[in-house]
């Protein structure tokens, strides 16, 4: 093999630039094969699967309480969204209604999480365009929210707040005041961030970049801020309220932009910061009294879980998160299916990237706020034939030879 010489013909007009799986612009592994002509992007192919962890299959081998622990670890940013969605499905199956206070607290953590997720996004966006000062500033503000998490739940990232039929931690009067004062601080920080993002150099880098028009956004089934940046007015919190959003409907509005570029998607998130702060203030005003969780133990409520199935969806910071849950009636799961928002949005990336410059690749990729470890699926690529196929669960089971 070694002495076999191959004639290599280079096409110098086109250059294939590998972006990822390890690249300073990407916080998580994903592979883009970008074909460029001079500085212009002419084609993109995308490959996921570098950090596939098999969580869906793993959750099916565990009982509900263990599964909850596992599901929280699907995402390090929107961990509470995942458990809220999961718990929503379980409560529908068991026909259990959490108390009002529990729902409000669940929503409170949910919105704090949106706040920290959006601040994280804005920091990453600033970093991608080389604006390190703004990056440092937004992440400094994000610390305020993380500190609140730590005080409320004891954890900064994985809050472990949800249990079946309620929440785990209550807040007292002193904590309410602390959240309220932090929120007024956050509002000031958000105003400052909004002003800095209107800076000319930022606008030059972001506007008219990564265009996704209204029709294409609908056709590609984009969700969340990506869709709202293209003028699609969709928000699960309004359209299909869960937790306490039914009663908080009037305290926020859905932010949309019609430009459909990276700047619009950034702006949507900046304005959602203010909406989120409004929701949190309203929650603190209206917080009902009562118990936060049922008296029975977790194990009991788990063992009383009947056989059934439910679909649940929530508006995670990155968009609609969808769970399909089927319980086996013995305290375990028969099937779990997770559709994360990034998986819905990432197909739009190819359309957004083509026609832009190399300098825009990190900006466009960051503009959908990808959370890649949520979005990984197994694809097996036949290197000889070059065709790819996605492995379904049955094949995975056969490969694994585990018994159920």
């Amino acid at each position, binding site marked *: 093999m070694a002495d076999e010489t191959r004639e290599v013909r280079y096409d110098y007009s086109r*250059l294939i630039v590998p972006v990822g799986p390890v690249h300073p612009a990407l916080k998580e592994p994903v592979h883009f094969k970008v074909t460029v002509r001079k500085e212009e992007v002419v084609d993109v192919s995308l490959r996921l699967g570098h950090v596939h962890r098999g969580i869906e299959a793993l959750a099916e081998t565990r009982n509900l309480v263990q599964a909850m622990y596992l599901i929280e670890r699907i995402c390090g940013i929107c961990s509470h969204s995942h458990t809220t969605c999961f718990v929503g499905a379980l409560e529908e199956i068991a026909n259990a209604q959490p108390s009002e206070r529990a729902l409000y607290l669940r929503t409170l953590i949910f919105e704090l999480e949106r706040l920290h997720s959006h601040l994280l996004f804005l920091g990453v966006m600033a*970093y991608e365009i080389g604006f390190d000062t703004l990056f440092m500033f937004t992440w400094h503000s994000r610390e305020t929210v993380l500190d609140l998490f730590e005080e409320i739940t004891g954890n900064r990232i994985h809050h472990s707040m949800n249990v079946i039929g309620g929440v785990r931690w209550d807040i007292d009067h002193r904590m309410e005041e602390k959240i309220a004062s932090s929120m007024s601080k956050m509002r000031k920080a958000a105003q400052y961030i909004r002003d800095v993002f209107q800076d000319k150099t930022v606008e030059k880098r972001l506007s008219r970049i990564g265009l996704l028009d209204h029709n294409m956004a609908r056709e590609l089934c984009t969700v969340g801020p990506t869709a709202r940046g293209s003028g699609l007015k969709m928000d699960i919190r309004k359209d299909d309220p869960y937790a306490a959003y039914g009663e908080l409907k009037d305290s926020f509005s859905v932010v949309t932009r019609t430009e459909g570029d990276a700047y619009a998607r950034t702006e949507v998130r900046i304005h959602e910061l203010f909406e989120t702060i409004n929701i949190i203030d309203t929650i603190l005003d209206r917080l009902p009294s009562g118990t936060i969780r049922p008296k029975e133990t977790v194990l009991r409520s788990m063992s009383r879980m009947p056989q059934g199935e439910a679909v649940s969806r929530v508006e995670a910071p990155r968009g609609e998160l969808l769970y399909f849950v089927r319980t086996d009636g013995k305290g375990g799961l028969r099937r779990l299916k997770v559709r994360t928002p990034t998986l819905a949005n990432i197909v739009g990336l190819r359309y957004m990237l083509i026609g832009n410059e190399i300098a825009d690749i990190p900006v466009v990729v960051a503009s959908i706020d990808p959370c890649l470890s949520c979005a990984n699926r197994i694809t097996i690529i036949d290197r000889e034939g070059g065709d790819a196929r996605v492995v379904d669960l049955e094949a995975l089971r056969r490969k694994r030879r585990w018994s159920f």
Partner: protein
Amino acid sequence: MVVLVMLLGAFPVVIFLSLFFEGIDRKLYARMQKRIGPPIIQPFYDFVKLLNKESIFPVTASKTIFASVPIIAAASSILAAAIPLVSLATGASVLGDLILITYLLAMSSILVMIGGSSSGNPYGAIGFSRKVVMLIGYEVPLLTSILALSLKSKFSFSYIDVVMTQVEIGTCFALASPGAAMAAIAFLLCMPAATGVVPFDIPEAKTEIIHGYLVEYSGPYLAFAKLAKDASSFALSFLAFTLFFYHPPLLEDFALMGRLISIILIFIFTFIVMFFTITIPRTIFARLKIGQAFKFYWRYPLALSILAVIFVNVGL
């Protein structure tokens, strides 16, 4: 002969000062971002650390060019700082050394860029093409503004003659006439691009093309490539200060303590120039795109420097 010995003696001084200035720059940059920042001697640690690290040569690289280029680049940018330093300390006049200095500075950029593209990495190639565009963008106004100065000092391209003209007229060029002031502004505007910092760090944008031409360098070669960058930013700040802001009443009144205080003062002012042209822009701006940067340079600094030449010619 004495000048040659002093020139060699100036090498460690330039290395020390350029690393030290980078340390202060990083500290101030961090403080402006609400960070604590690294200790001021961090660049020295980095330099020594990198010298002791392993070097990896990519199989696609042409080894001789790849390995020799950073060392020559570092040597030429240190020389570009050492010549004006020695020339100012001894008062020795060399015919046309101003042209030599500007070429040495351009040389260090071109060399590192060639090294990057010789690595065979596509990011190095993109960095190369971007750097070429940037060079065309900023070198022309930079040279034109220096031309305006030499016209001002009886068409002499000797560094010390230009400085001494300021001593003769008793004030610095930036305050002397509108033409020279325009040249000064054009020169200062070119500095962020010449040193490669945000908003003009396009050839080595780390989120876009992973440090461009530096992508395959490691170990001692990376240390020298970084030293070349530090030394050239020191050389540029030093040139900018002594050519445009050498204000004799401020610097020459220390007869008692001799030249020591005035040299220390010169270094302090050099740092101030560096602070305003390198540290501040990289704190308050986002990175531009290559087309935007090029348009900027051919619109404002070039127009300013050409205007400066015209103004100086008509005697303003």
